[in-house]
């Protein structure tokens, strides 16, 4: 039977893995994609203005 400390350690490791292993990289990926989209949209707007001109 696991002791309380071992149980706490187990859940700490699981939550840390979920947080640092899955959630944070996913957030970073989303931020990078949003940034890329914003840059592309700026570029597209600029290109559209130049085409219209």
């Amino acid at each position, binding site marked *: 039977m696991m002791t309380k400390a071992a149980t706490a350690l187990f859940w700490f490791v699981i939550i840390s893995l979920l947080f640092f292993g899955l*959630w944070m990289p996913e957030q970073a*990926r989303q931020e990078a994609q*949003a940034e890329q*989209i914003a840059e*592309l949209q700026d570029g*597209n707007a600029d*290109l559209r203005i130049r085409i219209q001109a």
Partner: protein
Amino acid sequence: MLPGIRRRWSRTIFVGPNSDFTKDRFDIAKGELIDVALDPAICLKRSLSFPKAVQQNLAKAVDVSVKQTVPENGKDLVWRWKVRKKTKSEIQVEVYLFKKADLVAVGRSISEQKGIVRTVFVDGLKNSPVLIDNRPKSDFSVKFWGAITVLAALSCLAFFAISEARQTSELKSNLVETVSEQSELSERAVLLRQKLDQEDEAFALLNGDLSLFEAEYQRLPILLELTELLDDNVWISEFALIGANLRLSGFSTQDVPEIMAEIRALSWVSSVSLSGQINFDAISRQNRFDLLITLEAINES
């Protein structure tokens, strides 16, 4: 605390040799879960020895041996055992025997005091099964709410995972859309650039033609001066300017030598000659003439 779960889940009551569980009162709260620990001293003990060879089937050997040594094959008894000593040749086992009626009496006594029997076990025999086990019923709420908690935690996790995945997928589709828009705009820009280049090329060609037209003899001034010089009496039917030679054919009521003299007086004319006969048309009363004019080179400066 979750519903159905208490801070202290159960209470253990020790029943020793001096206690009479049919009469003793344990100050039990209504509905309290009770684990009854029976002191080995209150039961009948029996020591058995087995050869080492039965070690693999020791539990069966103990059961058979106990049944052989108690009345009615131990129908009214419950027993638990533990290995007391192991030597090279034999295994010594201590067996604790209880009357089933006594265990039922324990349960009844607890029930009478408004408690609920959770387990009855022999104190000190940690590894052997309990004598009475009501945990599936008494611990149901713990398992139920534990499962609900785990389910809720998993649902939360799944919800967050799904929402994150949906957000990522939305961003991905947005990115694909923006990239395709960019490529479309780029294609349009390339087409516009090509069109612009073609227009530039056409303009350059036109410019080249104009330059060619104006090169060497400045054809436009020649045309303008001839237009000014020749009045309405002269009608030009052919005008061919090739290199330094200008071939001029036409009709005139005026004398052709006069026309030739006027043309010769122009600054850019080197010589004027007739390239054929002068024919008189009796019907229109006009002279038909063909002139060959040699031009003088005009300095660009």
